[in-house]
């Protein structure tokens, strides 16, 4: 039920706070009521007709890079390896 799909913003109608997005070539109007600062060309997560969030291309690429490096065989003990991902300090 929480499934959201990445879609690219093709155009924005500021008057209605809506964007036309491309979902793998299929065009659809979605509401921008939940996001700020979205621009044409951005990728957003679309869920039940709303853009929930912008997707960060930099973070997406970094995740893929980590996937490639994490899965390389590393004979050193795991506790001596650099941590693979951002660790957030609990509040």
């Amino acid at each position, binding site marked *: *039920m*929480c*499934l*959201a*799909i*990445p879609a*690219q913003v093709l155009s924005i109608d500021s008057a209605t706070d809506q964007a036309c997005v491309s*979902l*793998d070539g299929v065009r659809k109007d979605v*509401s921008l*009521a*939940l*996001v*700020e600062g979205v621009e044409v060309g951005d*990728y957003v*997560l679309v*869920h*039940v*007709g*709303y853009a*929930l*969030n912008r*997707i*960060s*291309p930099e*973070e*997406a690429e*970094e*995740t*893929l890079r*980590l*996937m*490639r490096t*994490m*899965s*390389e*065989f590393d004979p050193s003990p*795991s*506790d001596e*390896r650099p941590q*693979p*991902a*951002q*660790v*957030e300090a*609990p*509040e």
Partner: protein
Amino acid sequence: MKFIDEYRDSALARNIASAIRTEVHPDRDYRLMEFCGGHTHAIFRYGVQDLMPENLRFVHGPGCPVCVLPMARIDQAIAIASQHRVTLCTYGDLMRVPASERQSLLKAKAEGADIRMVYSTQDALAIARAAPDHQVVFFAIGFETTTPPTAVALKTARAEGLSNFSVFCNHVLTPPALRAILNDSGQDAARIDGILGPSHVSTIIGSAAYAFVAREHGLPLVIAGFEPLDVMQSALMLVRQINQGRRDLENQYSRAVSPAGNTKAQALMRETLAPRETFEWRGLGWLPDSALRVADTYADWDAEQRFPVEVTPSREIKGCECPKVLRGLLEPTDCKLFGTVCSPENPMGACMVSSEGACAAYWSYGRSRQSNRATTASAA
């Protein structure tokens, strides 16, 4: 599709699986609870469990809003639609969920109630605008991912003075459900070594909302995306945490999730909705502060106040093990109804109706798998 295909790369999946097999310690078990139904679906659809070593098991959690909604709330929605002659709009996920007396929204619709499936709260608002003399109720369900669109609908209805629109609110919150499972110290509590944290819920509420898991329960949690490589990378991150004795909150899904989440959506939710003192969850019982109702300042758009109904107490289907499946205590194949009288075509319980339910995932992708008894207490 960009941001999807890259995270389904089979060669990379084999490499990550190989890393996991290399790094797990052979003398211990790793039991990782995937909270979300979206994770369950990915694990089965892409055969992720089959790529894991024998001593790493995924334990299925309660993260499926359709599955945890108690029958009584569906009974209430049907009663609102039939007793008050309103148009009831809801998402397609709910249409076939069993209610009392073998009823469902779909059957009630067939019997004459005006029940309509909508894609978005915007559609429900449009129906209300088009028929100003007719009452339209939006049957709202879902976790924090699906809640902000309901908040937008309430705010829009008030701004436009849409007096014929109201919301039957059943939105539930993920942290209290996770707390309930982690606080369950009963004899049959599922043993969990680490948690794959919610994916799209976290885009809204932020990863920091789960800091309590490490702080209060001493368990590692990794916010995980829904694609198969996301799930596998998160599993590897959890294995490393467990091996190193760390209990950290990590964010694998950083392309969409920040520590603070979507603050605009959170503000809309705070404005239009308020916490309920308690709410019933299928499988988890009554949990305090675990759900939302329409806020007092929006009471004119609250369907529960506008359309009070008499509902007799419901009884779950005898023999249905959904409650234990939702708590990670049983696998779907441990239920004697699974695959006999209960299937997606003829669901007895909600876990078989929703495509994200563990039973539906087993039916669609994993029926031939040997039942995994690792999640039962006897194996603990």
